[in-house]
C-alpha cells in the first residue's frame, strides 16, 4: 500500500510541475505586460516597478523564483491589479466560499445520486425506476449554466422564496440554489452509473448465494452488493470533482457568491496574470490531490487491485 501511494505521488508531482510550467510560459509569452497602460509610464518608473516584481530578470530565473516561492512558502506573489493585495489574500477570501458550497454540492450529488440509483435498481421497471432514469436523462442536458437561470426564474422571480444571489455569510437560503445548480448533472450521472452497476451486481452468483441462504434483502444489499456497486461510482468521482470545480466559476459569476471563480473571471478580464495563475495552480493541485485520494480509496476497497 505504501509503495502504491509513493508511486502515485511520483506521478502527481511532475503533473503539477507541468501545470505550473505551462501556465508560466503562457503568461510569460503574453503580448504586453501588466503595467502597459494607455498612458505610458516614464521608462525609469517602469524599470523600478518591473524590478520590484522581478520582471527584469531572465526567464529561467523568474520561473525558478516563482516555483520556489510556491513550493517553499506557498506564496503566489502579488496581484498585478490590486496593488495592496497578494494572490494569497484573494484566495484566502474566496476559497472558503467555494469550498462551502462545493462540499455541499458534492455531498448532495453523491448521496442523492447513489440512493436514487440503488432504489431504481432494486425496483427495476417500477415507477421509481422510470422516474430515476427520466431524471438522469433529463439532467444530462441541464448543465450548471442552464440550471442556474432556470432556478432563479422559478424560486426568485416567480415564487419569491429564495434570494437571487449573494453570499450573506453562507446562510442556507443563499446556499440552496448554488448547490442545486452545481450538483444536478453530476447527481444524474452518479444515479445512472449506480443503477447500471447495481443491476450488474444483482445478477452475479454471490448475490444469488446470499439470497439462497435466506438473508433479508436489506442485508444482501448492504453487506454484499454495495461494495462492488460503488467501485464505478468511485472512479467517476475524479472527473466529477473537476467538473464541479470548473462549474463553480459559473456559480460564482451568476449568483455573485464571491468564491474564487468570481476572482478568476474578473482577473481574466483585467489581465491580472498572477491571480489567474495562482488560482489555476491551486485548482490543479486540488484536483491531483483528490484523484490521489480516490485512487487510494479504490485500491483499498477493491481487493483485485494489485499495488
Amino acid at each position: 500500500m505504501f509503495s502504491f501511494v509513493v508511486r502515485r505521488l511520483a506521478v502527481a508531482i511532475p503533473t503539477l510541475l507541468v501545470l505550473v510550467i505551462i501556465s508560466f510560459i503562457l503568461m510569460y509569452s503574453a503580448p504586453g505586460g501588466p503595467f502597459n497602460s494607455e498612458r505610458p509610464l516614464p521608462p525609469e518608473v517602469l524599470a523600478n516597478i518591473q524590478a520590484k516584481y522581478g520582471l527584469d530578470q531572465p526567464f529561467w530565473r523568474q520561473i525558478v523564483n516563482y516555483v520556489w516561492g510556491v513550493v517553499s512558502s506557498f506564496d503566489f506573489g502579488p496581484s498585478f491589479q490590486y496593488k495592496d493585495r497578494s494572490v494569497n489574500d484573494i484566495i484566502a477570501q474566496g476559497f472558503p466560499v467555494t469550498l462551502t458550497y462545493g462540499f455541499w454540492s458534492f455531498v448532495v450529488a453523491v448521496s442523492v445520486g447513489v440512493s436514487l440509483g440503488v432504489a431504481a435498481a432494486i425496483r427495476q421497471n417500477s415507477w421509481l425506476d422510470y422516474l430515476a432514469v427520466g431524471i438522469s436523462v433529463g439532467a444530462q442536458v441541464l448543465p450548471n449554466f442552464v440550471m442556474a437561470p432556470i432556478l432563479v426564474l422559478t424560486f426568485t422571480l416567480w415564487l419569491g422564496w429564495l434570494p437571487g444571489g449573494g453570499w450573506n455569510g453562507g446562510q442556507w437560503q443563499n446556499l440552496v440554489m448554488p448547490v442545486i445548480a452545481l450538483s444536478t448533472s453530476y447527481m444524474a450521472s452518479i444515479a445512472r452509473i449506480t443503477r447500471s452497476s447495481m443491476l450488474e451486481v444483482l445478477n452475479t452468483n454471490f448475490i444469488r448465494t446470499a439470497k439462497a441462504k435466506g438473508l433479508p434483502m436489506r442485508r444482501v444489499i448492504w453487506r454484499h452488493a454495495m461494495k462492488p456497486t460503488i467501485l464505478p461510482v468511485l472512479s467517476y468521482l475524479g472527473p466529477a470533482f473537476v467538473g464541479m470545480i470548473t462549474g463553480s466559476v459559473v456559480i460564482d459569476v451568476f449568483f455573485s457568491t464571491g468564491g474564487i471563480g468570481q476572482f478568476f473571471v474578473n482577473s481574466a478580464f483585467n489581465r491580472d496574470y498572477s491571480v489567474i495563475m495562482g488560482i489555476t495552480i491551486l485548482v490543479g493541485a486540488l484536483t491531483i490531490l483528490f484523484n490521489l485520494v480516490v485512487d487510494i480509496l479504490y485500491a483499498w476497497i477493491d481487493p483485485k487491485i494489485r499495488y
Partner: protein
Amino acid sequence: MFPNKAAIEGIGDAAHLAEVKGRSLWADARTRFFRNKAAVVSLVMLGLIASFALFGQFFAQYDKGFVDFSLIGSNAYKGVPSIETGHYFGTDSNGRDLFARTVQGTGISLMVGIVGALVAVIVGTLYGATAGYYGGRIDGLMMRIVDVLMSIPFMFVLILMLVIFGRSIFMLFLGIGLISWLDMARIARGQTLTIKNKEFVEVAVATGVRPSKIILRHIVPNLLGIVIVYATLLVPSMIIFESFISFLGLGVQEPNTSLGALINEGARTMQFGYYWQIAYPLFFFVITIFAFFFVGDGLRDALDPKDR
C-alpha cells in the same frame, strides 16, 4: 460433441438466407438503429435544427446586425415576439432581431461542436491507435502523457490562454481541440489492443506492410464503429463546453454569438420580464443536446458490440 440436429438445420437455413440476400454488418446496424424510435425522432430533430441554422436567415425579416433604436428602452412591450412586427422571437436588449441572432447562435454552436468532435476523432484515434499498436514502452509513455493531461482542470488553462492570446473563435477551437481528444485516445487504444492480435494484422505484418500503413489501412477502419458512436456523444459535450465559456463572456465575441452567449444575455435580462430572450436560445440548446444524446445512444446500441 456433435452439434444437434436442430443446429445443423439452422445452419442450413442460414446458408439459404445468405444465398437470397447478403447483409453486411453495417446494414445490420442500420436496421437496429432505425428500430430505435427515440433515436430516429432525434435524427429528424437534428435535421430540422441544422436546416434552421443553415436556412433560417432567409426567413428572418431583419439582418442579425440591424439595431432597431426605436425599441431601446421599450423592449418589454414593443420587442415581444410577434408575427406582425416580423420579430418572430422578439428582440434582444440591444434591439436586434432575436430570430436572426438565434439562427446565427445555433449555427456557431453546431459548428463548434462538430469541429471539436472532428479534431477529437482525428487526433485521438491516430494517437490511441499508434500507442496501442506499438505497445510496450511507447504505449506506456504515450498513455502516461494522456493521464497527466487528463488530471489538469483544462477549463482554467483554456481561460488563461483566451486571456493571453485574445478571445477568438480560433483560440476556442484550439483549446477545445487540446482537451477533447484525450478520451478518444483511450478508447481507440483499448480497441486497438484487441484488434492488433487478429489474423489480418498478422498477415499484413508478415507481408511486410509498414506499421504506419497497417495503422491507417487495417486498424483505423476497424475502429470506425466505436469512433462514430463517441464522436456523436462528443458533439453535445463540445457544445456544452463552448456555451460554458461563452456564458462567462470569454468565448465567442460580438457581433458573433452562440447559444451560450445568448443564454447569458437572456439570463441577465430575465429579471425585467423579457422571458423570451432566454426562452428561445434555451429551447434550441436543450433540444440540440437532447437530440445528439439520443442519436448517440441509438448508434451505440446499433454499433457497439459490447452492450448487446
